[in-house]
């Protein structure tokens, strides 16, 4: 059994590598080309790959440096008996976004449902949903670069030290902080908001904490990083577009502030809390199963 000290040492090496491999090129590219050019266009996407795969590379290098081996790598599919979790990974982001859309209509659309379906016909909606569910999971090979690091290495290392709640909160903050060069460049929130960039970084940490609950639950249930990679791909590449289908009564020029964006995501946060509670319940059951029964 490995000691907490050696696990903590491995975790520190991993975090140093994950941040160094991501931040150094990101800061250089932000200064030389600007965030939008190197990250959001097809002009030099090759240069963005080390940033996207930094956590995975950190995982591999840390295992090699510390001679950890690959016995707990979570690279197995473990599809048998876990298909429902893979399907959950595929659908949950769209369900959360749909809930966000309903909530936004209630709060910022004055509960006016008259414009529902104004922009998309039934067939267009069905077509969009089918394409999203069929093709977006294929982009999981891109988000695997992050999930193999965060859920595949960081969370299992943190859990014995900080517990489940601590792992989710601290892990989420670390994950959010990892995005700093991109947030400063304008990712998610732009650069034209009051409180830039600190409010954006804080908001990103909050989002990462809650998304981390869902992703960690998927990883723990299946013992595999692939469901988390699929769910992350759904977040990044179009799974959240379902909220557009349920928006109504919101002005066309409505441009939410950072705080408003967080408010619009409240249903997502609530659903993620459910996953958190499920994880805590599973932990309790596991502890109860391990402890000897006393009469």
């Amino acid at each position, binding site marked *: 059994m490995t000691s907490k000290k050696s696990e903590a040492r491995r975790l520190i090496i991993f975090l140093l590598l994950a941040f160094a491999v991501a931040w150094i090129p990101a800061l250089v590219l932000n200064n030389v080309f600007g965030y939008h050019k190197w990250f959001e266009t097809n002009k030099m996407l090759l240069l963005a790959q080390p940033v996207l795969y930094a956590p995975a590379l950190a995982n591999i290098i840390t295992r090699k440096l510390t001679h950890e081996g690959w016995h707990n790598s979570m690279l197995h599919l473990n599809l048998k008996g876990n298909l429902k979790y893979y399907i959950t990974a595929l659908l949950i982001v769209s369900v959360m976004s749909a809930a966000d859309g309903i909530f936004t209509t209630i709060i910022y659309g004055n509960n006016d449902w008259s414009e529902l379906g104004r922009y998309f016909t039934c067939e267009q909606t069905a077509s969009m949903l*089918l394409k999203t569910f069929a093709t977006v999971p294929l982009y999981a090979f891109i988000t695997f670069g992050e999930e193999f690091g965060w859920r595949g290495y960081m969370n299992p290392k943190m859990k014995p030290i900080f517990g489940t709640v601590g792992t989710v909160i601290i892990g989420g903050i670390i994950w959010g902080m990892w995005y700093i060069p991109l947030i400063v460049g304008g990712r998610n929130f732009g650069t034209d908001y009051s409180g830039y960039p600190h409010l954006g970084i804080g908001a990103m940490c909050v989002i990462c904490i809650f998304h981390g609950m869902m992703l960690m639950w998927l990883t723990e249930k299946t013992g595999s990083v692939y469901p988390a990679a699929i769910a992350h791909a759904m977040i990044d590449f179009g799974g959240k577009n379902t909220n557009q289908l349920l928006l109504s009564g919101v002005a066309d020029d409505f441009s939410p502030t950072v705080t408003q964006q967080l408010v619009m995501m409240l249903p997502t946060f609530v659903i993620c809390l459910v996953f958190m509670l499920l994880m805590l319940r599973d932990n309790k059951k596991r502890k109860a199963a391990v402890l000897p029964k006393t009469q």
Partner: protein
Amino acid sequence: MTKFRALMYREWRVSRKNNIIKALFLILFTAMMWGMMFSIMTDPSLAEGEKESLSVDYFVFCVSCFSIGVGIPTGDENFKSDLNSGWLRYSYSLPITVYDKISARMVRTAISTVIGFVFSIINIAVCCSVAKVPFSMSYIIIHFCVLVFALVISIIFDFFTLSARSIEEQKTKSEQGGIITFIIFVAAALLLMKINKISFNDFIAEDSVSFSFIHSLKADMLIWLIPLIPILIAVHIWVIYCRLSSAEGDSHSISVSKSSANNTKAVISDTHDYPKGFLYKEIRHNRIGILLIALAPLFSYIFASGMLTLVWFFDNAEDGYIKAITSNVVLLASAIVGACIASSLLTGIFKGDDKKLWGYFTASTSAGIKGFLYTKYVLLFAMNGIYLAASYFMSISVSTVRYFLFGEENISTMNVYTVVFFALLFLSALDIPFIVLFGTKKGSIIKISGLIVIVILLVLAIAYTPPETLDSIFAFCEKLIKNEAEGWVQLIPAAAPLLSLGVYYLSYRISCGLFMKGVNAYDK
């Protein structure tokens, strides 16, 4: 004479299945060419005289190439059978000389070539009389050109393959020979075009391919073509004699068999650290295939840009070469080539498992048939995913280079790769039950035969469909591809990926049902 008759009978007997299949293909292909010819003849958009000459030239080129190509056995399927059965080594202990074996082979080749030649000439003569076009001497000369060309390919290919003394060696040398033959063929064709000042544009007349170059073949070419044929035959005999004169082949065969023996030892002794289970057996067994499929987009890009390079060089084109090879057009062309490579690599994971012993062992394990086929299907899906990821990295690398050199941004080709992913999945789903039921070799033949029949029927259907109907079908397809369709029709392209996944799962269930039937029917 008795020895020669016996060897001839053996040659015919061993190759009879191949001969029947080739004959069937020849007849089917010729039938398709007749259909194409009639469709060109009835095309209202072409002028009267143009129709006949276009259709006859097209017919002549295709039928002559196929007939002669089918006649000459490049690669010699009998050699493979002889290696497999051990007859090759055994024959060195018999009272027959290498020249006896060569004579039997050359006579067999001559007979099938003459049959192909005559069949082609008869068809062309009938075609000319139907199209009311005079039978030209150039139609015979093209046959001699194709024959010379086929002989050269045979010589190069046999130079590589006939030194093999085991099936594995023969496979490796076939691949090497195939690649070198292809390179020599392309280089020679381009050199001939350069010498004769023929450009690629000469093959394109308005919006169709033109074969009118056939009429530039004059009778005086026979002065060097006819003597060249016996010279090439003599060279071919000499190459075969050099390669078959020894029972051990060349010195490479000994070192290859030694090194493969060493590899076998390493695998047997080195098992205590490896994980267990069918998935790890598949990964270990197919690690080269997995590596190749990850490199397939790179190879296909090199091939596509290589072809463009050759055209650029021989056509003396203007500047803009680097811009051309980093364009989306080359990326799309490489996607198509890569898909063909990936398709054969994907179904290659079933090679070697179509054996009775392995089938019975699989059925007896705790995972059983379902577990075994499950791992195959999962691996195939994963390899498909690896190909998609590798294609993406290839594409963004080329786009990055293009941006840094020219400041231009390529449109993302990820949509194309996604379509290729699901298309490969669909094709594999159709392929695998045939392989499971009939084995790798037979399954491929049956599947290809079925596909050829479907393609022929489709080509004939298209050829005889009225142009207005064809135009409306193409317009409909264009709308679907560009997402401009309305109503429930727009769900068709959206549902296609899910259909592929559904067919893939269905294929798994069918394969599970067919597995033991296939195992019982395997040859060994």
